[in-house]
């Protein structure tokens, strides 16, 4: 899933204060699952904005509507009237949401309330961790099903650097050393010889650095 975090409130204020009718649009898929931008969080943000704007005497209104996915036009069409009536649409989706709204409704002012941060696995309640950076060239079969591109601070593909200590990464004790995990996994799978093999150089052309990507599937044409 994609996770996103809400921007600092003052940044949101700085944008929204210029507008009278603000429509906070929640997204009830990825960002709802990561408890930051679904219906409930959109309502919380709207409530905060109303209180703050009320204190400062900013005229206008802050209302909320939530769609299942802002990245799909069909869902956006359902809120077309509310969007068009608003002076500003504030999206609590990942960055795809506000872009989708901007594209679908030309002329409408759109602002992101969120910073998109990662493609994550749910480690537990209130805990997500980045497991993929969409490099476009998945090689985790050779690393015990664990991705060093997403999960090593230096995207190392040939084993841990000298900063691996006690299973933790040198950049922070909160970060696991993925190569310790890969090492232990390969040992437990009896695949120690994988550790000896030299990998790479990594093919980055399939990643975002190779240019904006799009995907089209062959098949049924409506």
């Amino acid at each position, binding site marked *: 899933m994609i996770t996103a975090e809400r921007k600092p409130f003052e940044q949101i204020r700085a944008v929204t204060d210029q507008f009278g009718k603000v429509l906070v649009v929640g997204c009830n898929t990825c960002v709802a699952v990561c*408890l930051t931008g679904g219906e409930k969080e959109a309502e919380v943000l709207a409530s905060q904005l109303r209180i703050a704007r009320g204190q400062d005497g900013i005229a206008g209104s802050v209302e909320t509507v939530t769609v299942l996915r802002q990245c799909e036009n069909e869902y956006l069409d359902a809120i077309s009237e509310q969007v068009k009536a608003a002076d500003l649409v504030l999206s609590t989706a990942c960055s795809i949401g506000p872009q989708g709204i901007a594209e679908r409704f030309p002329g409408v002012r759109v602002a992101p309330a969120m910073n998109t941060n990662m493609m994550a696995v749910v480690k537990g309640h209130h805990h997500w961790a980045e497991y993929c950076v969409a490099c476009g060239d998945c090689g985790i079969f050779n690393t015990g099903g664990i991705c060093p591109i997403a999960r090593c601070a230096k995207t190392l593909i040939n084993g841990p650097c000298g900063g691996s200590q006690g299973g933790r990464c040198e950049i922070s004790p909160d970060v696991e050393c993925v190569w310790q995990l890969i090492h232990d996994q390969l040992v437990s799978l009896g695949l120690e010889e994988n550790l000896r093999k030299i990998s790479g150089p990594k093919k980055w052309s399939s990643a975002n650095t190779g240019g904006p990507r799009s995907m089209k599937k062959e098949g049924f044409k409506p």
Partner: protein
Amino acid sequence: MAQDQTITRHFFRPGTGDDGLRPPCEVACPIHTDAQRYIQLVAAGRYADALEVIRDTNALPQSIGRICAHPCEDACRRGQVDEPIAICNIKREASDGAKAEGRGYDPPRPQFGDRKVAIIGSGPSGLAAAHDLALMGIRPVVYERQPEAGGFLRTGILNYRLPKDILDEDIAYITGMGVEIRTGVAIGEDVGFDELAAEHDAVLIAVGLSESRSLPVAGVDNRGVLLAVPFLEAVNAGREVPELGKEIIVIGGGNVAIDVARSARRVSGGDVTMVCLEADHEMPAHDWEVRDAVAEGVKIVCSQGPNAIVGDGQVEGLEMKRCESVFDEQGRFAPTFCETELSTLPGDTVIISIGQMSDMSFLGGSGPELDGRGILVFDREQCATTRRGVFASGEVVTGPGAAVSAMASGKRAAIAIGKFLGVDVDFPAEPRAVNELPGYVAGMINKGARRSVPARPEDERVRDFGEVELGLGEVDGRCEASRCLLCAAGARYSETRCISCLTCVRVCPYAAPEADGNGLLKIDPDKCQACGICFTQCPAKAIDLAVLSEDDIRAAVDAALEGSGEVEFGCWYPQTRVAAEAGAVMLPCTARLSLGLVLYAFEAGAGRVHVAVCSEDDNGRFVTGHRQTRAVVEEGRRALQEIGLDPEALVLTLVKEKKCLKPQQ
């Protein structure tokens, strides 16, 4: 202190995903009183509101609050944790408390049309039917052959359990509704049955079981042999019973026999011994009745059957034979005796209390059909006899049972009569209850001892007919009510709103939510404890709570702010207000407080919001609930800071003394 008005009349059962399950207490109750709601209202100290809930289904709230056999308590899931809630005593507490407030005793005055129904018998069944018919706009006229109304409640139950003035108040409420009770009128003697039927649009036979059964043994003709019903009638009426001696033997092991024994003990001041066929553990009387009788000095001889009454003109004793078994393999009553193992119990009085029967002679042969045993032929579904327009209810058709069961029968008959008379009513669907608590859930619930109702000392109470039980009183009543587990009142889940995020699965302390491989969720109502944590965490607003819903809480916030600039989100269990000056929004646990609700309070104009919380080392009403409360207050403070409000305007206050879960002193 601002009055907490959190619990509203409609606070149960919002629409979302309601599976229709009800608390076991309510389902077990023959008249399906919404016990959970009135218990919660008593916990909140709102007695008149509680009494109003009781009156929804119960025409005799004060009387039943004293003498009910309370099957609700047998079903109470608290019993799996420690002991059931003292529901019956709480019911009494509601009426006592409301009376002290001077509220809840003004009957409604329904407008009657021109149809009227004759009800023969003013016992619990007849009165319940009359009450319900009156509310349908049908005029009931109750005929009672005794000089005063109440049926067996008056003639069979003694003042020490049900004071006459209490019964009078219940009856006065019903007559206050416009129900006419003609006492001292014996159908079949003063008015013929046909005449009665001709004068009314329908007739309800609710005459109960007014005759005592006797015993076919030698010596029953001796002076000193009495029957239970006339004996109790005499004692209840305050008449002398000249045959009563000082060594009294009561034959029988049921609740009536217990009443006979306890009355005989009071009237005679002598020795009273009960003799019953059943072994100790088989006695049909409720164990608490047996316990009270023994406490008052009544002796009980089990597994003995009467062989003969000894005496030549005057009772000298009871010859008994040992009873080997009472029931046959199918569980039917079929006692077997050892005819050679005889013994004699000396005594000067024998009171036979082995059961009652009906006396249908008043029908005079023109009424509905009787079967070969003289019992009414009866359609249980429609409460109908074989004569059109003549219905029956209560023990006359159900056989002996609890007063509340007789009321249930009367209530059904009222509906049947209403239907018969074209009123738009129907028999309600039988409610379904949640199942037992899974063992691990029962183990997670904090224990709290049941408050026992205080009683007058045994040596004092056997000397008079004053009421034995004194009522719980405010503190114990509210504390006892606080033990309620809110069965079936927890999470309500909307499949259409759910986004299958599994948040509820992760946060529920009781593992109530379960998701299948497709992310389809089910919240097991047997496990849910209504703590509200899932409600606060669900990002898609797919979960609401039956008690209280988010809308209920918002409405309560609005109401709280009408008289105050501050709001307290408090624990609705007793004596735990943390901000007396604030408008109260009381919650079963502040764990159900979401960030959105906190902000709503500020948005609605609260200058300060107080939140009550249990201490860290004390789980309070719900395991881990206090952690969620603390987390939401932290979140709330950050949210306030972000928007330039003083985070200290959100005040977290520890509830220091939680009497609700403490053992009784």
